[in-house]
């Protein structure tokens, strides 16, 4: 989300710059505090939108909470709701969510070396990897390398836990707000979902291949949806993504 200056999104938060929080407990509390700020507000607001989307799809609040609790990573959660509304099959939902969230694999691979320390039980890494999502991941990549090794996982866990809790609260809040606010305001809440991701991806797109993927995907998405509401999304991802990847490779070779 931060573009060129890696410290840009810490500026409004009172995150201490001291690279030592004294103990793992101190680091976990510092992580909790570090998550409070602009990233939490923006993510919290987008989960307000998710809660309204859940209500708009005719589902109950427990389903929204279940989704945020178990499948925390907003793009995949929105994919599930949207495909559910369209009556898509289990296979299509599984494949679309897997493709949407495959980015979590390289993100986790990149973060883990900064969290590992000999003596930590392996299951803790598997547990806290649940918090690997754009906001907490970016904070972990920025802060953890500078911490004493025994404080790194604790900081990431504290940061991720605070964000995740906030998202659960705003999922429920968004659901109830969508029920009491007038219809034209609820529209705005539901509209947060596509608008937030549109801007996150525009902000994040620095590589030519990814910019091409965004443009081609946006152009192919609506027409392919009309061709097949069930498979259109998967075909859009594979076709437009591969096209962009291939075009970038060709362009790189030509200018090499």
């Amino acid at each position, binding site marked *: 989300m931060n573009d060129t200056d890696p410290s840009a999104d810490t500026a409004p938060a009172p995150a201490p710059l001291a690279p030592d929080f004294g103990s793992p407990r101190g680091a976990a509390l510092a992580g909790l505090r570090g998550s409070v700020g602009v990233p939490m*507000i*923006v993510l919290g*607001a987008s989960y307000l939108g998710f809660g309204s989307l859940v209500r*708009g799809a*005719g589902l109950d609040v427990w*389903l929204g909470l279940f*989704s945020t609790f178990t*499948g925390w990573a907003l*793009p*995949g*959660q929105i994919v*599930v709701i949207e495909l*559910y*509304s369209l009556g898509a099959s289990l296979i299509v*939902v*599984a494949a679309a969510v*897997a*493709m*949407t969230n*495959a980015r979590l*694999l*390289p*993100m*986790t*691979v990149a*973060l*883990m070396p900064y969290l590992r320390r000999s003596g930590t039980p392996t299951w803790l*890494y598997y547990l806290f*990897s*649940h918090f690997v999502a754009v906001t907490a991941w970016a904070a972990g990549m920025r802060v953890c390398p500078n911490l004493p090794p025994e404080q790194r996982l604790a900081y990431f866990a504290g940061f991720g836990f605070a964000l995740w809790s906030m998202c659960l609260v705003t999922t429920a809040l968004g659901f109830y707000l969508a029920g009491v606010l007038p219809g*034209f305001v609820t529209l*705005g*809440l539901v*509209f*947060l979902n596509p*608008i*937030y*991701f*549109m801007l996150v*991806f525009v902000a994040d*797109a620095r590589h030519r*291949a990814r910019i091409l*993927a965004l443009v*081609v*995907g*946006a152009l192919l*998405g*609506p027409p*392919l*949806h009309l061709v097949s509401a069930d498979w*259109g999304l998967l075909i*859009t*991802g594979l076709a*437009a*993504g*591969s*096209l*962009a*990847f291939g075009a*970038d490779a060709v362009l790189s070779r030509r200018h090499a």
Partner: protein
Amino acid sequence: MLEPLLEGGIESGPLWPYVLMTVGALATYFWRGLGVALSGRVDAGSRLFEWVACVAYALLAGLIARMIILPSGPLAEAASGDRIAAAAIALAIFFLTRRNIGLGVAAGAGALVLMTWGRAFF
């Protein structure tokens, strides 16, 4: 719009959305767990991962464009011109405020609310 939810076979049962969510959660955690297992053994900057990123970006861009242009659910009640104009306003404010995501999102959602509300009077 809601007909597909109310009719059909087994897939219309009350547990069906939980089944879909669980599968979605497993498909999500799978990558995180695999990432922990593979860390230190694969290169996060490889060409394969770049292709994976392209596919994910294209899929989400397709979904976002579809949600704005051909929405299902409550957004379908807003005029399509309003939705597209609100998305354009969000992008404009984002770039005018030195890429501030919060302000861009607020402007886009606010614009859609105001335009929809305004249509009640004109």
